[in-house]
C-alpha cells in the first residue's frame, strides 16, 4: 500500500506531465504484479464495487474521532472529498504505524478484502474498515478510502498511464491502449496476460480505443484544399463502438462501458451483422425508419437520449418516446481484420457499400456534407442546430484511424454556444483543487420582479476570478442552508450552453446542456440580465 500511496501523493502534487510519467514508470517497475493490474484497473475507471456506503463510513469515522455528525459535514464541505475528510479526521498513531512498517500489506490485499466483505454482514464490514484504518497512516488511509468511495480522479489521464506502461514494458503506446481496453477482470488476469503479446486475442469484446479530435481554432481555410477533407455533422449523442465477433454483439461507450444491455434496439444486429466487424459511431436518439424511406433520419435532441442513460431496465414508454439508433461514422474492423491503418477514403467507401446493402433500422450512415469551398461550409454550419448537431467533424481523407486525441488529421468545428446573462444567487464550495473555495454557483434570471433560479455552473472562470468571487461570497452571504450560501444578487455572468430543453424538474421549466461561465460581466448590473421570457423564447427556437 505504501508504494501506491506514494504514487498517488506524487501524482497529486506534481503539475508536470513528465514527472507524472516518471512516477508511473517508477511505480510499474517496482510494484507487485498483482498490484500493477489493479492500478491499471483503477486508473482506467474499473474500481471494485462499493463495499460500504458513505453514511456507514462517516459513522465509523465520527465514532473513532469522537465528533458530532454536523462537524463531519462541515469538514467534508471544506475539504471537498469524502475519502480525504475521513483520512484527516481519524486520529493518527505515528508510533504504532512505524512499528508495523515491515509487514505492510500490498494494495491487492485491501482490494480483495473489500470484495470479500461486500457480501458480509455490516459488523464484519465495519471490523475490516476500522482495522484497516488503524494499520494505515494518513496518506495510505486516503487511498484506501478512495478505493471504497470511487472515482480516482487524481490528475492522471489514461493517456499518461498508457505511456508509462508502454515505457515500462517496451511496447508501443497504441498497442498498450488497445490491450488494456475492454472487458477484463483485474481480480483474475495477470499483468503478463493483460499487457503481454499473446494476451489480447482471446477477448472477443475487445474494443478499439477511439480516435478523438481537437477543436479547430483557426479558420478552416487553414486546412488547405477542401477536396482533401471529408466533412460530417458532429452528432450530439454518446460516442460508441458496435462490435460483432463469433456471433456475439458488444456495444461500448466512450467511458469504456459495455452498454449492450441498455439498448434493445441494437439487439437484432447480433443476427444481422456479419462476424468480425467493428463500427465507430454515435449512440443517439433516432426516430424509427419509415418503410421504404431512404432519406437520412434527423436525430432527436440530446435531452431525449438522456432519459435512457443510466437506466438498466427500459420501459416500453421510453422505447417509444426516446428510441435509440446508431449513426455510423467509420469501419474499424471487417471480416475480422483491423482496418484502422487503411486510409479513411477506403474505409468510407467500404462502409457506404455495406450500409447500402444492410439497410437496418438501428443503423444510419453519417452523411458526408457536400461543399465547394470553406466559405460555403461556414454557411452550412449555421444549420447545425436545426440538424440537432453540434457543428462539423472535418477528417482528412487520407487519415488512418489513430488512438486517442491527436492533432492534425481530424478536427471538430463546433458552433458557437448559446448565451444568456444571469445573476449569481447561491454559492457552494467546490471539490478537488477548488476545495474550500466557493466555486459552484446557481444563477437566476428575472421573472417579472422575482429572480428565478435556472441553472448551476462550475467552470469557465480563471483561478484569479474564482478567488475574487469567493471573497465576494464570503462577504455578501445572506443565509446559510447546509453547505449552500444565498448571496446578494449582484454579480452578473454571461453563461454559455450547448442546448436547452423543457424540464418539469426545474422551477424555471428549462434545463440547459453543459452550462458554463463564459465571461464575468463586470460591466452589467442585475437590472440588465435576461428574463425567463428570453429563456422560453430560446426553448421555442432551439429546444425542439
Amino acid at each position, binding site marked *: 500500500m505504501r508504494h501506491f500511496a506514494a504514487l498517488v501523493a506524487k501524482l497529486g502534487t506534481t503539475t508536470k506531465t513528465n514527472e507524472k510519467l516518471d512516477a508511473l514508470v517508477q511505480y510499474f517497475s517496482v510494484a507487485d504484479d498483482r498490484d500493477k493490474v489493479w492500478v491499471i484497473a483503477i486508473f482506467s475507471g474499473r474500481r471494485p464495487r462499493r463495499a460500504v456506503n458513505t453514511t456507514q463510513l462517516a459513522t465509523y469515522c465520527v465514532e473513532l474521532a469522537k465528533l458530532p455528525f454536523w*462537524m463531519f459535514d*462541515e469538514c467534508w464541505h*471544506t475539504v*471537498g472529498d469524502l475519502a*480525504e475528510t475521513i483520512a*484527516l479526521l481519524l486520529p493518527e498513531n505515528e508510533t504504532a504505524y512505524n512499528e508495523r512498517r515491515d509487514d505492510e500489506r500490498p494494495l491487492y490485499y485491501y482490494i480483495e478484502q473489500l470484495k470479500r466483505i461486500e457480501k458480509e454482514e455490516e459488523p464484519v464490514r465495519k471490523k475490516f474498515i476500522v482495522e484497516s484504518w488503524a494499520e494505515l497512516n494518513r496518506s495510505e488511509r486516503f487511498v484506501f478510502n478512495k478505493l471504497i468511495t470511487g472515482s480516482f480522479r487524481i*490528475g492522471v489521464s489514461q493517456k499518461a498511464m498508457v505511456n508509462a506502461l508502454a515505457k515500462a514494458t517496451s511496447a508501443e503506446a497504441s498497442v498498450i491502449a488497445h490491450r488494456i481496453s475492454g472487458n477484463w477482470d483485474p481480480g483474475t488476469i495477470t499483468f503478463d496476460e493483460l499487457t503481454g503479446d499473446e494476451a489480447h486475442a482471446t477477448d472477443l469484446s475487445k474494443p478499439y480505443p477511439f480516435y478523438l479530435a481537437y477543436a479547430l481554432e483557426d479558420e478552416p481555410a487553414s486546412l488547405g484544399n477542401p477536396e482533401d477533407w471529408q466533412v460530417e455533422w458532429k452528432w450530439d449523442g454518446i460516442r460508441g463502438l458496435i462490435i460483432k465477433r463469433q456471433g456475439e454483439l458488444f456495444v461500448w461507450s466512450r467511458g469504456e462501458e459495455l452498454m449492450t444491455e441498455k439498448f434493445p434496439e441494437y439487439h437484432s444486429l447480433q443476427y444481422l451483422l456479419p462476424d468480425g466487424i467493428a463500427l465507430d459511431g454515435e449512440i443517439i436518439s433516432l426516430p424509427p425508419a419509415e418503410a421504404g424511406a431512404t432519406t437520412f433520419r434527423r436525430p432527436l435532441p440530446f435531452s431525449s437520449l438522456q432519459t435512457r442513460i443510466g437506466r438498466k431496465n427500459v420501459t416500453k414508454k421510453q422505447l417509444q418516446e426516446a428510441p435509440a439508433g446508431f449513426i455510423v461514422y467509420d469501419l474499424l474492423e471487417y471480416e475480422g481484420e483491423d482496418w484502422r491503418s487503411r486510409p479513411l477514403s477506403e474505409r468510407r467507401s467500404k462502409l457506404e457499400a455495406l450500409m447500402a446493402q444492410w439497410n437496418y433500422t438501428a443503423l444510419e450512415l453519417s452523411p458526408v456534407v457536400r461543399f465547394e469551398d470553406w466559405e460555403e461550409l461556414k454557411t452550412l454550419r449555421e444549420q447545425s442546430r436545426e440538424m440537432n448537431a453540434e457543428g462539423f467533424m472535418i477528417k482528412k481523407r487520407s487519415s488512418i484511424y489513430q488512438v486517442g486525441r491527436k492533432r492534425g488529421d481530424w478536427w471538430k468545428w463546433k458552433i458557437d454556444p448559446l448565451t444568456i446573462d444571469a445573476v449569481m444567487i447561491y454559492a457552494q464550495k467546490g471539490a478537488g*483543487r*477548488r476545495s474550500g473555495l466557493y466555486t459552484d454557483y446557481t444563477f437566476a434570471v428575472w421573472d417579472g420582479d422575482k429572480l428565478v433560479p435556472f441553472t448551476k455552473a462550475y467552470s469557465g472562470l480563471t483561478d484569479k476570478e474564482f478567488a475574487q468571487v469567493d471573497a465576494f461570497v464570503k462577504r455578501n452571504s445572506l443565509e*446559510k442552508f447546509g453547505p449552500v450560501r444565498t448571496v446578494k444578487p449582484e454579480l452578473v455572468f454571461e453563461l454559455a450552453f450547448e442546448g436547452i430543453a423543457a424540464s418539469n424538474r426545474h422551477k424555471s421549466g428549462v434545463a440547459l446542456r453543459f452550462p458554463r461561465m463564459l465571461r464575468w460581466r463586470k460591466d452589467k448590473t442585475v437590472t440588465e440580465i435576461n428574463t425567463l421570457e428570453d429563456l422560453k423564447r430560446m426553448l421555442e427556437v432551439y429546444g425542439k
Partner: protein
Amino acid sequence: MPLIEFTDHGFYCRAGDFFIDPWRPVSKALITHGHSDHARWGSKSYLCHTDTKPILETRLGPGHYETVGYNEPISINGVNISLHPAAHIIGSSQIRLEHKGEVWVVSGDYKLENDGLSGEFEPVKCHNFISECTFGLPIYQWKPQAQIFSDIQQWVLKNKAAGKSSLLFAYSLGKAQRLLPCLAEVTDRILVHGAVYNVHMALVNAGIKLPEVHRVTPDTPKEWLKGAVVIAPSSAEGTPWMRRFAPLATGVCSGWMAVRGAMRRRNADAGFPLSDHADWDGLLKAIKATEAECVYVTHGFTAAFGRYLNEHGFNAKEVKTEYGDDETEEKSTDVLEKLEE
C-alpha cells in the same frame, strides 16, 4: 459595560481608553503581533512587546512606540495590563487586561508548539478569552515541527540531487525565520527575497540571533542561483523574479497545505503543512486552560468552532473582525513588498 467592546474599529477597552489590534487608526493601540492585519498603519501611539517594535518600525515607519516585556505588568487609566507569550511569531503576545476583578485575555494569533524562536505559549487564566480559530476544524492536526522540517530537508536534498533550486514560499515575518535553522542544516547558503530580507535585518539589528541569509539582487552571482535554496513570500509566486533560479521546484509552507485541494490549487511542487497557528487540538487545549466563562471566537471557522464549543460545555460567541483568514496571504499593500519593487 464589559471591559472589552467590539466596535467597528476593533476591540475597545473603555475603562483604559485604548484599542487592541484596531483595523482603523485610533489614538492608542495595543498590538499583539507584527503581522499586517493586526498591526495597522495610522494610529497615534502603539504599545507592543519589545521584539515587535523593530517589526512595526520597519512596517509602519517612524511613530510613537512603547514597549514592554512578557509578564511585566503596567497600568493604563487604572486597567492592569500584561503581555504573555503567544508563540505565534517573534514578539507575539496575548494581552491580559484586569479591571475591578474582571480578567480578559486577547490571544491575537497563537500556537502551542514551541518553534524555537517565538517562545513557549503561556496559558493565562481569565474570565473572558478572545481566541482566533483560523484552523478551527478537526481536519487540521499538525505534525510536530521536527517531522515537517525533516520532510522539507529531504525535499531540498532531492532537488539538489536533481540539479534544481528549492524555492520555499513562506510568510516573510515568522515562517521565513522559522525555516532558517531547518534549511541551515542542508545548505550553507540561504538566499532570500527582499521582503524576507527586510524583516530579517530589522530583527537582526534589534539583536535577535538568526542564521545568515543573502538577499537576492541583480548582482547575486550566477553560480549562486543554480541549485539554490531560497525563501520568498507567496506574492513572488509566478513572477518573473522566480525564473532566475531555473530549473527549480517550489514548495509552499502553510497550514492550508494539509488539504490536498488547497495544495493543488497553489500549483506548487510540494506543500508543507507548517503553521504558526494552533491546530484543532491546540485551540481546544488552550481554551480549556484559560478556564474562561466566556470564549469569543474570531477570524477563522467561527461558526463551526463556536457551535462545537457550546456543545462541549463552553460558553462561546462569534465575533466578526477584519483579521485575515489566510496565513499565506500577504497584503499587496504591505510596505515591505513595496520597498522591494
